[in-house]
């Protein structure tokens, strides 16, 4: 499923829209490809993520998912989009601090069940989740309340939660801001390999070009 930006101007950014930007032009994110959004702060990186996630509706122009206008999405269609088609890691992570790491991850099974009438959730098994957690170095934190973790640890939980569902797109907003280079690389490798296995596209935002990622198409906004 391709994501098409068609003359989109986010209302808060209307005055600052310049040429040579994704705003107020036509741009298509093609499924299976990898994109890196690079821009200084205040240029609308998180706004872009919010548009794709369907949390923001304050824009002009049209956002098309495989030709379908997002303005026509019902709440149910949005929930299907978020649960089965497009996985998001928000900049503020949006975890449940009063639940443990494992509960935060397993919540996705309940969400899948809610969509599939309790039959065959398309999530990862607990063993796979533990295996991934081990790769990211948070295996020992599985039974710890998320509220007690450091922000870097929480970022890894949010990444795992995003991976624990079927998706055609995974959109990550500053996912490695609190990770050291080595851990960021491990996380990125995990994300890329899982995305590739599902032929999913990746959109990552990063604050500056310090973090230019190999194999990712840079997109300016």
């Amino acid at each position, binding site marked *: 499923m391709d994501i098409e930006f068609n003359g989109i101007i986010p209302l808060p950014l209307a005055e600052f829209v310049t040429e040579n930007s994704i705003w107020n032009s036509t741009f298509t994110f093609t499924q299976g490809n990898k994109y890196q959004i690079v821009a200084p702060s205040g240029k609308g990186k998180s706004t872009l993520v919010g548009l794709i*996630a*369907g*949390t*923001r*509706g*304050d824009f002009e122009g049209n956002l098309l998912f495989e030709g379908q206008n*997002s303005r026509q999405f019902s*709440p*149910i269609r*949005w*929930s*299907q*989009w*978020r*649960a*089965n088609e497009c996985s*998001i890691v*928000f900049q503020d992570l*949006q*975890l*449940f601090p*009063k*639940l443990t790491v494992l*509960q935060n991850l*397993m*919540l*996705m*099974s*309940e*969400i899948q*069940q*809610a*969509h599939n009438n*309790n039959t065959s959730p398309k999530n990862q098994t607990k063993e796979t989740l533990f295996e991934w957690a081990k790769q990211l170095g948070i295996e020992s934190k599985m039974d710890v309340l998320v509220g007690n973790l450091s922000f870097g640890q929480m970022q890894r939980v949010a990444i795992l*939660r995003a991976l624990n*569902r079927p998706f055609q797109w995974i959109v990550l907003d500053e996912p490695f801001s609190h990770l050291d280079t080595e851990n960021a690389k491990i996380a990125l490798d995990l994300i890329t390999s899982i995305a590739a296995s599902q032929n999913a596209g990746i959109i990552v935002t990063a604050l500056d070009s310090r973090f230019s990622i190999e194999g990712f198409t840079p997109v300016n906004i």
Partner: protein
Amino acid sequence: MSQKIVSRIFIKTQKPSQLIGAIIGCFLGFFLIFIAAQLFADFKTMVNSQEQSIGSQFLVVNKQVSVLNSLKLGKSTFSKTEVDQLKSLPSVKRISEFTANQFEAVASMSIPNGESSAAFRTELFMESVGDDFLDVKPDDWYWELGNEMIPMILPTDFINLYNFNFAPGRGLPQLSKATIQLAVFDIDVRGAKGTAHFTGKIVGFSNRISSVLVPKSFMNYANSHYGNNQTAPESYRIIVEAKQQELPKIQQYFKDEGYETNEELLKNGKFGSLLQAILGILAVLGIVVMFVSVSSFILYVQLAISRSKYEIETILRQGYPHIKIVQWYSKQLALIFTIIAVVNLILVWGVKNITNAYLENFGFEAPAQLNIFVIAGGFLLIALLWIVQTLNVRSQIYSLALPNKK
């Protein structure tokens, strides 16, 4: 595991003390409404069983009998002018004059008793009055020319006197109303113009009128065929249907005119007005309290949702269908409201039993069961509140489920 984590997310953000407060408030509001409605229903049943329709009061009026009457110098009948004057009073809805028998009537009955037979024989004094003024309407309460059987209505006091006073003193069996209604006796009528034989049967008992009543059609026929007078008789007694609220006025009028009335009924009427007023106040109070508690419950639910706003938004952003969240809240509300309704009914039933016992001391007999309309109405009210609350929740969650346009 199913639904467990989701439930935990919503429950953990709530404050139990606020929930309990909201439930108690809602409970009290409903309790006041329920109990007022139930007591009102009981009261109405009791009043109806005494056949005093709400809003009016039936009074039997007669003139005071004085020495002058005994000496036949004064008249104790109502003249046409007096009747017309009574009719024209604003506090009077309508009146009917009693017609008394102007012929001799003798009732007799022989009771087979083994070899011998016991018999009773008594002179009868009868009256008739407009059927609309009766508190009982038995099916066989009619008479037409050619009928041998005369239906009669006796005062309830009469059978009470017999059962509780006469029969125990004489070692006679007490008789139920149904038994008495089985008896058929002979009535011999004799007057200036001849004699006739009829049979009589008790078809009902009246609390309102202390007289042996026969249908007006029979009385008119017998008076004109066997009566001793040529002219239409004047009435000694009149039954008046008065407006409940204007009882004091009419009472004063009767006093001024020197009329007598059944004072006890009047007291009941006053008591009834007072009770009605108290129940009315209770119901109004209940409606006010319910309104306040229902609004506070609605506010509580809104507060509960805004308290969980982060959790709801977050779970929606992970793809949880908004409708499932609405269902979760709706289920919790249904559970709370069902508990409120059931506990309320049990409590109302308990309170009713206590008041019933209390009322029995005063000779009132309230129905033992809860009024079906009160139960149905209560559940309907609660179902309505549940629907309103669910819609309230739905609109709030719906607005969180769509992209924010601001």
